[in-house]
């Protein structure tokens, strides 16, 4: 049996210690496409504020660099410890780290130093992992790093946190010794119980938000959480533009009817072609329900969204290019499309290249660019900025 094609979703969230403007924790991740693997590092610098931020940034970027070159764990840990500047007050150099190396088949190795233990979440329960203790000498002092290997299976989640999470709520009547791993475990269990498909970014945010609540909304330490989620990819089909040759209309219709995933059609003509090919009616909204400046959306059986073409796509591109955090609050048609795009992992795009004669009218606004170039920019943005996998077809 052919193994299922899986993807790795990485999500993280962090909050600073109360009254601090920078976070002393750093989370970095990178995808190495030609080696089919991901590297992620979560580091917590000693103390808080700028000093901690420098320590953790150095640690995580060094760790990523070493792992890229497959440096052995002991050497890596030693180099990091030797390089970090020594704190003038405490006379030690210290920054914790958890380095996670996952390949696309789920083979995972985790190196931990000083952070709370990671969790592997499988079928709604936390699974214990064996860890190998490796001795590292630093300035004639013995320290240990923990090395674990495991295989992430379908729907497994790997969760790492910094001590700001597990120690949140210290000194409170309910949690005098802090939230602890037990409290966190119960919380994650409840979250996954409520929604077994909760995304990596939503789960990490929920955990950090709960820690903030434990600290009565005045965080006592920087707190970060990262979730690595291996699951079946979510597909999305985006079609825009009439095919160059009418003989391809049938192909467009068949692709839409046979697609497994979300489907968006952009463009009146495109929607009409699909409607004709599949004998499905385009259902329009009553005018009263429209919002925003863009032409309104319509719907069709089996299609998730139908919008106008080039004006809406132009706005989609604008939103994607200017977006800083993947969080969107607007509700116009372009924002809905962006939401669909960001929720998908693999985006299949079909661009019809027939030139719409009507759009060549010189009296039309210049913003009405050629579909092909707008689509190309949307795709490149999805690939490079949002790390989506895209497949494009021009028909």
């Amino acid at each position, binding site marked *: 049996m052919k193994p299922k094609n899986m993807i790795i979703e990485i999500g993280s969230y962090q909050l600073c210690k109360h009254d601090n403007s920078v976070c002393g924790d750093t989370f970095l991740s990178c995808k190495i496409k030609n080696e089919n693997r991901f590297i992620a590092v979560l580091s917590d610098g000693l103390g808080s504020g700028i000093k901690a931020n420098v320590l953790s940034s150095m640690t995580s970027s060094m760790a990523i660099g070493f792992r890229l070159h497959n440096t052995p764990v002991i050497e890596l840990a030693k180099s990091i410890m030797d390089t970090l500047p020594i704190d003038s007050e405490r006379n030690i150099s210290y920054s914790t780290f958890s380095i996670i190396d996952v390949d696309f088949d789920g083979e995972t190795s985790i190196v931990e130093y000083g952070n709370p233990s990671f969790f592997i979440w499988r079928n709604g329960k936390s699974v214990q992992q064996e860890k190998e203790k490796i001795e590292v000498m630093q300035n004639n002092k013995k320290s240990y790093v923990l090395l674990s290997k495991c295989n992430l299976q379908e729907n497994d989640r790997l969760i790492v946190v910094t001590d700001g999470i597990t120690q949140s709520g210290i000194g409170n009547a309910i949690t005098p010794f802090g939230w602890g791993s037990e409290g966190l475990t119960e919380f994650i269990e409840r979250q996954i119980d409520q929604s077994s498909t909760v995304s990596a970014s939503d789960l990490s945010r929920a955990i950090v938000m709960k820690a903030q609540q434990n600290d009565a909304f005045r965080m006592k330490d920087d707190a970060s959480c990262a979730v690595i989620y291996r699951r079946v990819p979510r597909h999305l089909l985006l079609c825009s533009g009439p095919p160059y040759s009418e003989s391809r209309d049938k192909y467009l219709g068949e692709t839409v009817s046979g697609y497994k995933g979300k489907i968006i059609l952009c463009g*009146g*003509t495109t929607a009409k072609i699909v409607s004709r090919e599949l004998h499905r009616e*385009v259902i*329009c*909204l*009553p005018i009263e329900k429209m919002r925003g400046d863009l032409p309104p959306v319509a719907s069709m059986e089996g299609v998730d969204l*139908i919008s*106008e073409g080039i004006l809406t796509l132009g706005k989609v591109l604008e939103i994607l290019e200017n977006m800083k955090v993947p969080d969107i609050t607007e509700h116009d048609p372009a924002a809905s499309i962006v939401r669909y795009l960001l929720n998908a992992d693999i985006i299949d795009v079909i661009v019809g290249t027939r030139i*719409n004669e009507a759009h060549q009218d010189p009296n039309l606004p210049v913003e009405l660019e050629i579909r092909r170039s707008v689509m190309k920019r949307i795709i490149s943005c999805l690939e490079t900025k949002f790390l989506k996998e895209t497949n494009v077809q021009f028909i």
Partner: protein
Amino acid sequence: MENKIKIRVCVGTYCYVYGGNELKEIKDKLPSALKDKVYVEASVCLGCDAKGVVPKPPYVEIDGHLIPEANTEKIISYLMEITK
């Protein structure tokens, strides 16, 4: 809704840019006698993309009758005609 006159305003790109945007609010501009007799909805395209047709946007369709280069006056006068 069944007995109402159905006005479909094209909101395809070309029509939308050429005034379909404003025509969406046609209901507010109708005389009060007509206002309650109509139901307005959008349409993704009423046909300006057909080959060989010189498009005359914006298009509006009233109970199956297509009005090219539609504007408020044209719509009102057609509505007056059919409701006479």
